[in-house]
């Protein structure tokens, strides 16, 4: 099927299928629950989505290179605990300084762990699945070890203004951060040499290497970036809970990957957009939120979410066959 045979309306529908699903979902949720279509809930949904979406933008790059990062959920816990420990160790410093240093340490740990995974993957050619699975176990283990298994609390109360605060009284801080990260990663992916290298590696690694792209370094960079973003989400989450909890972030890696896949990024690499990921994250967030508002049992929510992920990938596979 070549381009000129396709009606522009069909082309639009195909290109915009995920946003269309989001619209339908939002309308259905609005009809089924009057609590859903309130401004307070709109803000609520987007805030809930923001933490995982921040990581999902990085994950998009990883998946576009043909890789995967399973360690991000554990990293949220580890970096959140690190930030909390640092903040608690600075009781005499001004809260702003303590928060700044604590957050910087958390993000640095995330980036460091990500860079290490990335370098191992690039240097030894071990499948990313295994390397980041190991990273997932170790990061979760260390999160418990460094706090003795007990959530770190007694933090300066001002951290709440980061995790649970608002800019201008309307936009939650995590949402603003998410939008900034979105803009930055979208620009990097579509407008920089690095971004084009990421896509080239995912499409055909050998060809990319032959074309002079430094494959190893580029791969290490995407894991570093994703680790850093997991750290950013982790420290902000510590801000929201006012506590560094080693238990948080359980299964986040799967939610994040689901958002990326629902957003139309191919797990085979070489194809994907950051905007798609944002839409994917919103679809999953709206679904979770409306099921909660309707009081659907957690077990059934898992079933629904699984079905949506499956349908999204089936639709994707079908459409790709059509395009050929």
């Amino acid at each position, binding site marked *: 099927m070549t381009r000129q045979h396709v009606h522009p309306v069909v082309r*639009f529908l195909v*290109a*915009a299928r*995920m*946003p*269309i699903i*989001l*619209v339908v979902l*939002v309308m259905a949720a*609005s009809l089924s629950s*009057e*609590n859903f*279509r*309130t*401004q*307070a*809930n*709109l803000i*609520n949904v987007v*805030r*809930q989505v923001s*933490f995982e979406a921040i990581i999902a933008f990085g994950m998009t790059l990883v998946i576009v290179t043909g890789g995967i990062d399973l360690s991000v959920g554990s990293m949220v816990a580890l970096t959140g605990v690190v930030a909390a420990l640092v903040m608690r160790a600075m009781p005499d410093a001004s809260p702003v300084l303590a928060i700044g240093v604590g957050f910087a340490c958390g993000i640095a740990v995330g980036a460091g762990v990500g860079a290490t995974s990335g370098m191992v993957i690039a240097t030894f050619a071990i499948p990313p699945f295994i390397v980041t699975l190991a990273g997932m176990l170790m990061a979760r283990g260390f999160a418990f070890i460094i706090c*003795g*298994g*007990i*959530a*770190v*609390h*007694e933090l300066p*109360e001002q951290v*709440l203004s980061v*995790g*649970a605060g608002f800019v201008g009284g309307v936009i939650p801080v995590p949402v603003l951060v998410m939008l900034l990260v979105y803009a930055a990663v979208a620009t990097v992916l*579509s407008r920089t040499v690095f971004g084009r290298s990421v896509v080239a590696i995912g499409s055909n690694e050998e060809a990319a290497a032959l074309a002079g792209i430094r494959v190893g370094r580029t791969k290490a960079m995407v894991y570093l970036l994703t680790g850093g973003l997991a750290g950013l989400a982790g420290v902000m*989450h510590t801000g*929201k*809970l*006012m*506590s560094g*909890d080693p*238990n*948080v*972030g*359980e*299964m986040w890696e799967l939610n994040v990957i689901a958002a990326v896949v629902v957003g139309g990024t191919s797990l085979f690499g070489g194809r994907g*957009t950051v*905007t*798609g990921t*944002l*839409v994917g994250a919103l679809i999953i967030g709206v679904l979770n*939120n409306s099921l*909660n*508002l309707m*009081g659907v*049992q*957690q*077990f059934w929510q898992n079933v629904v979410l699984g079905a949506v992920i499956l349908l999204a990938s089936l639709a994707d596979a079908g459409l790709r066959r059509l395009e050929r």
Partner: protein
Amino acid sequence: MQQYPVALFCIVVAAWIAGCEPNESPTSDDGRVTIGVTLLTEQHQFYQQLRNGMETTAAEHDYKLIITSAEGDSARQSNQVDEFIVQKVDALIVCPCDSKSVGAAIRAANIAKIPVFTADIANLSSVGEVTSHIASDNKAGGREAARMLGKAIGHKGSVAILSHPQVASVSDRVKGFREQIKLFRDVEVVAELSADGKRDKAMRVTEDLLQSHPDLTGIFAINDDTALGALAAVEAANRKAKVRIVGYDATPEARKRIDAGDIYGDVIQHPQRIGELTIQTIHDFLNGQTPPSVIPVEVGTYTGKDG
């Protein structure tokens, strides 16, 4: 191709904002009292029974319950509380996933002027106001355990405690146990060691205990995993006849061993009753009463089918 989704995405958000009810929520439907519940988990029998208790009493008062479960994830629990705030529930019941991490979520409900009640696990964070906390009387449970163990060993001999001091409810059990066991003049507590509430660690700790205290006659284990671990060690050392064990919770597995005479007895909690009392407390509160800040729920004992 990328600009289509972007454009449409902007339209969605704009339409959503425009379509929103301008002045927040139209609050709860048919005028019924709505109570939001976030459980620690729905996978444990304890919480299933607690949930049943809530549902029973809520039905009596014609309250609408919205029950969610965080499955151990404080982050998810915080989101669920945010959703209940948006729904403007009349009261909130939290079974915290983590007693230190739950404070910020409770504080958010406080700001929205929604009364918060905790069941089973308390808020130990420095923020967040809880109207009332409903949980097992763990101190009384510890005293019951001491009475049982005293009886089992004929009120004389050396006993050890296998504890888990990081958990507040367990500290209360141990306190109650020590209070009661002191009253038996011929019983001496020779050791208190932590087994972290885990079976494998309990086994190792008990092996050491049996070595260092050849005259040991009794063990109080603060939960059933600990009790079963201790039992494994005692059996391996062939000292089951001399060393009696008392556990806590009477899980199905422990019940079998109690019925078989391997464990002397267990303290049992009444999760169903905790659930019922939690809703009853909210009912009293909504009708203008001031409930006490802590409401202890009685515990019982299980010493086998034959009683």
